[in-house]
């Protein structure tokens, strides 16, 4: 009988045999098709990690000092019932000496949620907790059936959105996105105009005001809102900018060096929608929840050929508000 070591050696040796070169005709066929193959633009929030100076070590350090993130990791609330109590007057908690758990989506209960999303990305109904790099405190929420965590790439350090069923490639593009802001753009469509100093957008009112000044964007008057017991402002934005003049838009950077694009406000002509932002301050740290709070087909769905339907997400809106209402925030480290 073969030992494990023998069989591994034999298998490895066997795998070494065989072709290793791609025939030129195959490569030629690919390159011939490239000019006629449009690239797929990621209009659903894409955090572009365009600075390579950040390492996981740096991220670890940042997690101790500053709320670092974008994206979120959803973990099942293992054995916790009802989640943490919510205090209208939050008590500061000591910063954790170690970073939160890494992304562990595999521990979420998978559930089938239709074509377009892999089973590991789908979530069984239950209470979930944001963790990882997202939030040093604890945010929990109740997720019903039919929602999934969007995973656009292999980057499991930055889960970013909770979407209603994955109706199409890249997810439905309709749901909630949690993020933390670092430096806010003065013009999301023109990086040459630079970004605000962090101190200029450090409060809810200052951030809302900065967003209201974005050229080509129109913001509603800020309205008071409460998320998880924390007061904040709600503002909805639309834009007249399109992919033509805002191809690499960025609304703000995140502490790791990536940036968040202006989905769903900027899209192809006739394919943009309103982005609704809830901004709350938790112990001096701004938590931003962007929602696609509209009933129509999402820009991402439109871009993937799904027909425009004015009521496609009407029922989802009701559920999304239930999710928002279920959010509980257990605190975050006070900023130094």
């Amino acid at each position, binding site marked *: 009988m073969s030992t494990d070591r023998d*069989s591994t050696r034999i298998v490895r040796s066997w795998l070494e045999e065989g072709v*290793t070169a791609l025939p030129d005709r*195959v490569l030629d066929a690919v390159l011939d098709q490239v000019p006629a193959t449009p690239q797929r633009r990621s209009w659903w929030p894409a955090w572009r990690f365009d600075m390579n100076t950040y390492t996981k070590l740096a991220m670890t350090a940042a997690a101790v000092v500053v709320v670092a993130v974008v994206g979120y990791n959803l973990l099942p609330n293992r054995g916790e019932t009802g989640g943490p109590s919510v205090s209208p007057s939050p008590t500061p908690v000591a910063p954790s000496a170690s970073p939160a758990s890494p992304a562990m989506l595999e521990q979420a209960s998978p559930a089938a949620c239709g074509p377009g999303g892999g089973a590991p990305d789908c979530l069984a109904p239950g209470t979930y907790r944001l963790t990882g790099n997202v939030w040093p405190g604890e945010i929990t929420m109740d997720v019903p059936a039919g929602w999934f965590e969007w995973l656009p790439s292999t980057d499991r350090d930055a889960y970013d959105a909770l979407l209603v069923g994955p109706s199409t490639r890249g997810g439905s593009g309709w749901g909630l996105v949690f993020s933390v802001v670092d430096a806010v753009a003065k013009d999301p469509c023109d990086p040459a105009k630079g970004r605000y100093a962090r101190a200029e957008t450090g409060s809810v009112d200052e951030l809302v005001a900065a967003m209201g000044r974005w050229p080509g964007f129109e913001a509603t008057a800020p309205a008071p809102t409460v998320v998880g017991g924390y007061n904040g402002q709600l503002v909805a934005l639309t834009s007249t900018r399109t992919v033509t003049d805002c191809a690499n838009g960025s609304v703000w950077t995140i502490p790791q060096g990536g940036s968040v694009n202006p989905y769903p406000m900027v899209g192809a002509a006739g394919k943009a929608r309103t982005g609704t932002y809830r901004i709350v301050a938790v112990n001096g740290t701004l938590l931003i929840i962007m929602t696609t709070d509209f009933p129509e087909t999402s820009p991402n769905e439109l871009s993937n050929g799904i027909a425009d339907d004015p009521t496609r997400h009407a029922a989802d809106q009701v559920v999304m508000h239930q999710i928002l209402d279920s959010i509980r925030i257990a605190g975050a480290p006070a900023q130094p």
Partner: protein
Amino acid sequence: MDTDLVVRAQRGDEEAFASLAVAVGDRLHAVSHRILRDIDLAEDATQQTLLAIWRDLPTLRDPARFDAWSYRLLVRACYAEGRRTRQWSPNLRVLPVDEPAGPDAMSSVVDRDQLERGFRRLSIDHRAVVVLHHYLDLPLETVAEALGVPIGTVRSRLHHAMRGLRAALDADARPAAQEATQ
């Protein structure tokens, strides 16, 4: 991988993508051939993967993770090719006629044939794990990332796959051993 090349291709630079395709084409093809065990299917899978890389590059957030991301696309293409032809055609091997036919060589040939049969009985899921780990030498964590599955799943698939391959090898060894004792 040269991340600058990846970034330029992300921005629509066709020349950069051509360089990228040349740089990764052989490796992707080698992997797809080892997973699919069929040269025609492997060529199709590799071609589809390279086009998918071009099409979806703008959605790749971290260019430094290009390799793992491209393997994921490749395995998806292998799935698609595998579904397209569910019935695997026999893949006859041409052995060198001047290969010495001593006991060791014969044993090696038999091993290869047994492995071939054993491997073909595995699902694409299991083959992908074996190839990424034992051919590309990727750590299991990287295999999990590339396939988008938990590491526990990778370990499980690898365990079952290797058990199947070992059984294939042992199935060959048993009759030989019986003959030797007679």
